[in-house]
């Protein structure tokens, strides 16, 4: 088995009295694409936000290459390696498309302007956004914004990309363009954790599917197993509800 890039041990997170993550254990290997599915409120996004340290875990630990991300690593360096793509894009409104992909490189990675620009152009081309480098985020469609957000994440040369429901805020006809970029990424060997409601993506693209329910990982396995022959009652219920919609 390949080396574990991220290992999560007994992760817990409560907001006040309200426990959201109760005991999460899982790890992801290099090059793996893991889809996390589950109903709203099951803790999927919170888990992802804990991995990026946007939320501080209240218990357990998260290891990155065997090192505790809270105590043994510098937050900014770690985040540059494990970047996040959001449901609401979160592009920088005051910067144009190109600058959005440059700013992280120059500030966090200390790259020169020219190098950062070249790198940004390279990734913007991969997501098909080169014609729009001068546009401001407000001038783009949702699908275009999300592709820029992916290019911004890629420009950091990360080891892992966390996707937090990247297509949930998009119009149906724009979902495809974003998913196809993600599929390419997965095929190129990027390590990805994808929280998603796109069951087709989870089934066809990911190497492993995790079903979360009520703050726990309820079931996980290869997509064929989870979708084809779910073992747990909760998984069956969720999938039947979802697929019958």
């Amino acid at each position, binding site marked *: 088995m390949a080396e574990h890039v991220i290992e999560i041990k007994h992760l817990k997170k409560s907001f006040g009295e309200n426990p959201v993550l109760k005991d999460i254990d899982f790890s992801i290997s290099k090059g793996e694409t893991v889809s996390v599915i589950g109903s709203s409120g099951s803790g999927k996004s919170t888990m992802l936000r804990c991995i990026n340290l946007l939320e501080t875990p209240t218990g357990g630990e998260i290891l990155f290459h065997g090192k505790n991300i809270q105590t043994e690593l510098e937050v900014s360096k770690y985040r540059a390696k494990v970047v996040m793509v959001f449901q*609401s894009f979160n592009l920088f409104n005051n910067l144009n498309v190109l600058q959005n992909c440059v700013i992280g490189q120059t500030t966090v990675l200390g790259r020169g302007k020219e190098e950062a620009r070249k790198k940004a152009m390279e990734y913007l081309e991969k997501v098909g956004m080169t014609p729009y480098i001068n546009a401001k985020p407000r001038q783009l469609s949702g699908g275009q914004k999300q592709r820029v957000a992916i290019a911004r994440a890629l420009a950091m040369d990360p080891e892992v990309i966390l996707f937090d429901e990247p297509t949930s805020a998009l119009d149906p006809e724009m979902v495809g363009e974003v998913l196809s970029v993600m599929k390419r990424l997965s095929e190129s060997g990027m390590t990805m954790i994808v929280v998603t409601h796109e069951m087709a993506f989870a089934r066809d693209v990911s190497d492993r599917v995790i079903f979360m329910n009520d703050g726990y990982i309820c079931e996980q396995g290869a997509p064929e197993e989870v979708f084809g022959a779910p073992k747990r009652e909760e998984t069956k219920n969720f999938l039947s509800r979802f697929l019958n919609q």
Partner: protein
Amino acid sequence: MSLFEDISKVWSKYGDTILSGIANTVIISIIGTLIGLLIGLINGIIRTVPKPKNPVAKVVLTVVNWVINVYVEVFRGTPMMVQAMIIYWGYAYMNAGSTLPLIPAGIVIVSINTGAYITEIVRGGIISIDRGQFEGSASIGMSHFQTMIHIIIPQVMRNILPSVSNEFVVNIKDTSVLNVIGVTELYFYAASAAKNSYKIFASYLIACAIYFCLTFTITRILRLAERLIEGKENYTVFGSQSDFPAEIHVSKEESANG
């Protein structure tokens, strides 16, 4: 004797002196507003620093925040005329009677006073920025300071410019209270023209007209600045007008992971 004759009389005799007061009024209010803005921005950045884990840093931050709060409350809660007297004569009291030069003293007073108001304006400006902007930059590793300088403050500046223009206009008018410490600005000369010519109404009408011309010009200039910051509505499309589907540009050989 008609009012017009009064005005022209005062103007021909004291016009030059009154106009010479404009320079000080403008200098004090421009520099005062700019320094006030700087104070406000720095305070805004400090006030929004996330709680540090280090206990010493936590205590330092709490104390600094407390000092900023006291500063804001005290300087917003007292009249600038009183602040001018206290700062000017307080300095003299503590330095064996030697006083501050008047123009710098005026600038200091206006800066500190404006800083207190703009601190609150900046705080409102930062609160109004979507949390996603902070998370977007945090998620790729940018620090609080980097986020503030490159992402948040530019957006805050655009949003608070109307309020800052407001402060600027207030300052042009309120430098008049600095005459209590003897700063020779527009109001000071208008008042002395009134005293010397006994044409009080005419003298202050002239001052009024000049104040209005100043504030009106400045609000127009700042409105223009707002539009410049806003930027163009359009953008140039590079290469082609059509939006290529993503697949066309992604080649398999180019591994995204390097």
